[in-house]
C-alpha cells in the first residue's frame, strides 16, 4: 500500500496564504444539497447499470455459450511495456487491443482486463494469442501462442497471463 498522507487540509490551509476565489453569490446550502443529490443519482445510475448488465449478459451472452477472456501481466513484467494483444479464436480474429498508458499502468498494479466476451458452441476450440511490446532492455518483444480449450455447458472464463520476464512461458493460459 502506498503512503497515504491526507493533505486535503493542506490545500485548504494553503488557501489561507493564497487568495482563494470565493463563491460569494452561491448559496453554500444549495451547493451541499446539490452535492447530495448528485451522490443519490450516482447511486441510482449504478443500480440501473447493474440491472442492465445482467439483462445484457442474459440476452447477448447466454451462459451455455458464453466465453470471456481476461488478460493480466505477471510478476516479472513490471517494466515490460505491453503495446498490443491480438486474440484469435478458431483462426478468426476475435479482438485486437492497443494499450494506452493508463491501461498498462492499471495492469501493472494488478488489474485484470476483460479483453473479450463472446459466444462459442460446446466443444474444443483453438485460441491464438499474439503479443507485441518492449522489454525492459529496450528490445522489441513479439510472441504468439496457440492453445486449445474445451467449452462445456457452463460459461468459460479464460485468463491469459503475459509474463516475458519471469523465465516461465511468456504467454500462459489459465482456465478459471
Amino acid at each position, binding site marked *: 500500500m502506498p503512503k497515504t498522507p491526507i493533505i486535503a487540509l493542506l490545500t485548504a*490551509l494553503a488557501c489561507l496564504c493564497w487568495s*482563494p476565489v470565493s463563491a460569494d453569490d452561491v448559496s453554500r446550502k444549495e451547493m451541499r444539497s*446539490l452535492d447530495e443529490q448528485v*451522490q443519490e443519482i*450516482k447511486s441510482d*445510475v449504478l443500480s440501473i*447499470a447493474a440491472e442492465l448488465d445482467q439483462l445484457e449478459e442474459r440476452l447477448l451472452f447466454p451462459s451455455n455459450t458464453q466465453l470471456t477472456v481476461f488478460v493480466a501481466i505477471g510478476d516479472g513484467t513490471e517494466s515490460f511495456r505491453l503495446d498490443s494483444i491480438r486474440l484469435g479464436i478458431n483462426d478468426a480474429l476475435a479482438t485486437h487491443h492497443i494499450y494506452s498508458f493508463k*491501461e498498462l499502468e492499471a495492469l501493472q*498494479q494488478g488489474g*485484470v482486463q476483460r479483453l473479450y466476451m463472446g459466444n462459442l458452441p460446446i466443444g474444443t476450440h483453438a485460441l491464438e494469442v499474439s503479443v507485441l511490446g518492449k522489454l525492459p532492455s529496450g528490445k522489441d518483444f513479439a510472441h504468439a501462442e496457440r492453445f486449445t480449450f474445451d467449452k462445456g455447458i457452463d460459461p468459460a472464463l479464460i485468463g491469459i497471463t503475459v509474463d516475458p520476464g519471469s523465465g516461465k512461458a511468456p504467454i500462459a493460459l489459465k482456465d478459471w
Partner: protein
Amino acid sequence: MTRPLAWTIGLQLALMLLCSPARADDVRDLYFGEALFQAGQGKYFEALERLDAELGQHYGLDEPELDTLHHHIREAEFFVGDFELNYRMHHRAGRAISAVLNGDVDQSVRNEAAYRLARIHFQKAQMADALEALARIEGSMPARVRDDVEFLRANVYLAVGRSAEAAEVLRELQGTKGLTGFSEFNLAVALLQDGRTAEALQQLDRAGQVDARDAMTHSIRDKANLVLGGMLLESGRFEEARAPLERVRLEGPMSNEALLGAGWAELSGENFERAVVPWSILADRDPTDAAVQEAKLALPYAYSRLNVHGRAAVLYGKALDTFGRELNKLDASMGSIENGSFLEALVREEIHQDKDWVVRMRSLPETPETFYLVELLASHDFQTALQNYLDLEDLRKKLATWQASFDAFDSVIAARADYFEPLLPEVDQTFRELDSRFRVRVEQYELLVKRMQDLLVMPRPEFLATTEEKVLSTGLTAMDEALGGVGRDGNDELRQRIRRLEGIITWTLHTQYDDRLTRFYENLQDMQGSVALLKEHYQAFVRTRQAATLSYQGYDAPIKRLRGRIHQASAKVDQLMARQGRMLEQVAMAELESRQRRLVNYQHQARYALADSYDRATQAQYAEEP
C-alpha cells in the same frame, strides 16, 4: 505554466489512496481483478459497477467460502468504500466502511475501517465524526498505515483548533518517509495557529529546506518557502524574506507568486535594481495570471523609482496594451458564459483525454470562455461544482447510450422469436420421442447396474445365461411338462435325456459363471461411459432448448422497467446538470468580474503612471538640455 499543479496536489494524493499494488498473480478472482483494472485507470463508476455485482453475487451464495472472491473479501469491502470515495460518493463510502466497522471482524480490520471512516469524515469536514472514528482505533495499527493515522489525527486536531495537540502529534512525525515536507509544513501551521509565531517561522524555514525527491514534496517545499517569505514581508523583514522566496523553484506552481514577492521584498528594502530582475522574468509570463498582471504594473514602477522614466513609460504602455487585451478576453469569457459556451467547452471530450486538460484548454484559440479557467480552479467550490458537473455529464452520456441500446435489444429479440418460433414445435416433437427412448435406455442401464450389485452379493448363474441357453432351457421345461409325471407312460428315457440336457446347461452356467460375470462387468463399464455421454448430450440439448426460449422470452418486463428507470434518471440528471451548470456559471462570473475590477483598477493606475512617467521623462530631458 504550472499553477494547476498546486491545486491538484491534494487530488493526486487522494488518488494514491486507492489500490494496493497487488500483483496479477495474487488476483484469484478475475472480476475482482477487473474492478482493480478499471479503478487503476480512474474509471470508478465501472470499478464500482463490477465490484458491487461481485459482492452481491458472493453474499448471495450458499457457500461463499467456495467462491474465488472469498480470497479477497476483506480487500473488496474496503475497496468498495475507496472507490465510492474516489467517485465522490461520500455517503455510500461512509456506510460501506461503517458496515465493516460494525461487523463481526478482528480488531485489526476494525482499526483499519475506523481509520478509513475518519478519513471520509475529514474530507467531508465532519471533524467531530472524524475524531469519534479515530477514537475507535484500539491497540496498534499496522506499520504501513500508522504514520498516516497519526497524520490524519493531527490534521483533524488542526481543523478543530486543537493546535497544541496537533503540534505534539506532528512533532513525532518529523522526518517520516512518505510525509516529507507535509508533516513539516503542517507543524508550522499548527504552531502558527497556536500563536507561536517565532517557532512557526523557524519550522517553515525547515519545511522549506526538506530534501525533495518527487513533485509533491517539491510543491509543498515551495509552498513553505512562499508562505515564509510572505510572512516575513508582511512583518517588514524584507532582507530575510529574500532567501525563502529565492528557494521557490522558478518553474514550479508557486513561482509566479514567489517572483512577485521577491520583487516586493527588494522594493520594500529600496533595492530597486534588484526588484527589476524577478519582475522582468514574471512580466513575460502568461498574462492571464494575476501575479503576472501585477508584475506588469510593478516593473515600470521600479524603473520609475530608478528614475528611468522613459523605460517606465514604455513598460506602462505595454502594460496598458496587455490589460486592454486581457479585459477583452474577460469580456469574451463572460460573454461566452452568458451564451452557454462555457459549459459546452468544459465537457469537450477530446480535452479530457489529457491530464493537463485545464492548461491546454486555455491555449485553445476557439475557447475564450475558458481563458481564465485555471484561475477559477483555484477555488475549492468551483472544483467541487466542476467535478460534479463532469460526473453528471458522464452519467448523461451513459444513460443516453443505454436508452438507445433498447431498440437494438428489441430487434434482436424479435429476430430470435421469428427464427425460433416456427422451428421449436417440430424440435419439441422430435425431442419428446428421443426423450422417451432416452429414459428407457437409462432405466435399462440402471436395472443392469442393480443386477450386477445383486450378483455380487448372491451369485445367480442363470441370470448370465445366453439367449440360446435360455431358449433351450425353456424348450426343455416345456417338453418335460408335456411328458407329464414320472412312470406314468413309459417315457422315462426321454425324461432322462431332458435331465441330462438341463444338466449340461447348468454345468455350463456354473463353470463359466466367473468369466461371464467379468464380461458383464466390463460391458457395464463400457456402457457407463456411453450412458454418461448420452446424459451429457441430453443435458446440453435441454440447456440449449431452454436457451432458445430464454433468448427471446421474458425480456419485456425488465426492458420496460429499465426504460422507465433510465428515463427518470435522465430527467433527474438533466435537471441537476442545469442547476450545477448555473452554479458553475455564477462562480465563474463572480471570479471573472473580480478579475475585471482588478484589471480596470490596474488600467487606471497604469494610465495615470504613464502620464506621470512621460512628464518626468520630458522634464528630465529638458533638464539635461543646455
